[in-house]
């Protein structure tokens, strides 16, 4: 058991590709941390550097109190579970699990005891004499986990261990991994590209993009207070809807108007737009307009007349009025999910808007509907893929959900 410290870790591959860019990460003892991000974001490379399978270009890695930069993998006291399980095909399940201990010259009775114990935890006692070829995917996965836990290492490293399992098995194994972590309390670093897996497993999740950590926090915080547009779009399923537009003052009140920024113009005559002060920027389009809620006005003050991106999660759009603003949309597709359903909508300017609402009968496809926006839960971002979440600049906490 140990903490793992990454300080300014950088990986540059031959050829100059920067896979990981000076990341800092402090993983506490007994913590379950999940690295998540799209493919090519550097999450696997980071894990492999911790494992010692990949050389570190710059920075230091500490496991416990020891700098392990140049320590070979076998001496780092870690165990890893691979995506393809990487079980030794020529060894039985028992030998697969005992291999690491045998190489460390652990006495035979201790090996036996530990393997049996791990097999019991994972319910694979009846498989110990089989070769990996004779196991199903789920069983192989358990053996791979068993091989890791018999070693009793300082840290577990998981490299997308569930991605080769079918959907149902993935969910059950996910829960088992969580239970296992509660039981063993070993520091765990887990890599996945699946945000749902990350949310359910991690004590903290680390969202990465292009070799940079975007946000590292508890699942709930990354969901409620995403630091930027990328995190907001990555965490949560279906992803957040984003609308480009402009903040402007209408009759002294701050509003967001959806529209294309190329069309922006400055109001020069009173007649152009009576509510908007002369000298202000406005959009002549026919996008929707919603008022900016009170608690956000302070932090958005400097952005009036500028391009911002509005983010609304699908679950914060609803068909029933809870006292929010509404926007008019066209209903394209209804996807019933049982308790909930996903509505695929279209605004005048935005062809792909998703809403998750309670299951509802009698919705007519291709009709116009009114969607109510939960104004307490909307976000405003700077434009750009990783635009900063402007709503967080304020010290005032978000309305708790």
């Amino acid at each position: 058991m140990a903490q793992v410290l990454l300080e300014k870790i950088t990986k540059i591959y031959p050829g100059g590709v920067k896979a990981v860019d000076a990341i800092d990460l402090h993983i506490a003892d007994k913590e379950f941390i999940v690295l998540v991000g799209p493919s090519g974001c550097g999450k696997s490379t980071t894990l492999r550097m911790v494992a010692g399978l990949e050389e570190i270009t710059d920075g230091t890695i500490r496991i416990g109190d020891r700098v392990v930069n140049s320590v070979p993998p076998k001496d780092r006291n870690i165990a890893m579970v691979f995506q393809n399980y990487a079980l030794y095909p020529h060894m039985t399940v028992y030998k697969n699990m005992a291999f690491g201990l045998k190489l460390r010259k652990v006495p035979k009775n201790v090996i036996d005891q530990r393997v049996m114990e791990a097999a019991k935890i994972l319910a694979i006692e009846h498989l110990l004499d089989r070769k990996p070829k004779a196991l199903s995917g789920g069983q192989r996965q358990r053996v791979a986990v068993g091989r890791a836990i018999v070693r009793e290492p300082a840290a577990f490293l998981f490299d997308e261990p569930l991605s080769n399992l079918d959907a149902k098995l993935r969910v059950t194994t996910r829960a088992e991994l969580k239970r296992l972590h509660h039981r063993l309390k070993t520091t765990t670093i887990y890599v996945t590209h699946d945000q749902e897996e990350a949310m359910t497993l991690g004590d903290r999740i680390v969202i990465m993009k292009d070799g940079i950590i975007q946000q590292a926090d508890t699942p709930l915080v990354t969901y409620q207070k995403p630091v930027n547009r990328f995190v907001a779009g990555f965490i949560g399923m279906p992803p957040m809807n984003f609308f480009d537009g402009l903040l402007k003052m209408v009759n002294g009140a701050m509003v967001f108007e959806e529209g294309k920024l190329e069309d922006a113009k400055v109001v020069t005559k009173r007649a152009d737009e009576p509510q908007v002060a002369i000298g202000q920027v406005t959009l002549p389009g026919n996008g929707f307009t919603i008022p900016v809620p009170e608690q956000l006005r302070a932090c958005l003050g400097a952005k009036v007349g500028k391009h911002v991106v509005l983010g609304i999660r699908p679950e914060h759009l609803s068909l029933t009025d809870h006292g929010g603003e509404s926007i008019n949309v066209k209903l394209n597709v209804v996807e019933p999910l049982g308790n909930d359903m996903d509505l695929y909508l279209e605004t005048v300017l935005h062809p792909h808007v998703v809403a998750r609402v309670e299951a509802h009968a009698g919705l007519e496809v291709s009709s116009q509907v009114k969607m109510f926006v939960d104004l307490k839960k909307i976000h405003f971002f700077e434009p750009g893929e990783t635009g900063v979440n402007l709503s967080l600049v304020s010290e005032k906490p978000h309305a708790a959900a």
Partner: protein
Amino acid sequence: MHWDPNILATVPEKIIRIANPFTFIAWFTIGVVILVAWDRTRLKILYAVKSLWVGFSILAMLWVIISSMGTSKDFVQVPEKALMQFFDYHNPATMTAMAVCLACCGGIVALAVMLARRPTGGEYSFYAGQGLLGALGLGALLAGAHFNGFDHWRENYIRAWTIARMGDYMINSVLISVGSVGLITLLSAMATYALTKLEFPGRDSMLYLFVASLAIPTQLILVPLFLMMRNWHVAALNFSFMDSRFGLIIIYAALSLPFTIFLLSGFFRSLPSELGEAAAIDGCGEFTTFSRIYFPLAAPGLTTAAIFNFIGIWNEYNFALVFITNPDLKTLPVGLYYLVVTQQYAAEWPALFAGIVILFVPTFLIFLILQRQIIAGLTLGSVKG
């Protein structure tokens, strides 16, 4: 061989009449035609032709075996007499036996193809070859009951084994072949592991260099190598490449490395790198990763490589001739040639044929026993293991 020909004498005349060599060929052709008609693809025709070819080479082999059991006089007077007696037109028993056997042969080939749901090329050729071989061998045994020429096999083989020293040469051949195959397998497995699984600068160019050296004919380097090795020796170990079994082993190993590394590299690449990574984390160093993980996993590929090398080295003639001059250290192929040279005027043909059979039997047995392994090994690495 105790087999009463009178049993066959009771076979009706009609059946005997259709049993002549032309009928055998007809039977076989019918079998082949059935095959082709069964699945009219070019591939099947190709394999039919291939099995005929296999049949021809087996007939030649059969002729050598039969000749090794007769007398020199028989052979010199009528070289094809052995075969003629084998196909004795006038002996109804022999003829019937042969007819049955060859008909069986065609049948076996046809059956094999029909039964195997999806015979691969290799399987098909082997079924065909085995069918033919089995049938002919059976025929030879049956016919042998009536061929008094076979009576001399014992003296012929004893002469070849002792007087022509085939026994001694056999020991040399076994030592040299087994030694060099062992050395090649070990060295090439290690080299291939390094060239495919480890990362170091110049790795790929080194692999290409090995592959490129396949293009150099060994005959080309024979003379320069001889001139280099002639005067080179380690006095302290009393070692020289000349007239030394161990020297020849090293030369063979060096010559076979490029081919073996080339053969194995595809196979090693097909073994997942994650296994090595898992082993590294489990506590293996480079060498233990190789010896405990990749070496056992490469066993099928290594076996194939070992068999190919064994057959090549067992039959190797040029280098054995040039580097070994001491008659005590000669290998079988060279010894066989000396048998021809020394008996130029003595005309001990049956003993020579006995020598050929002695030379040929080990490789043949290896092929028979390990054929599946060889075919499997050749396609290994092409599909995900």
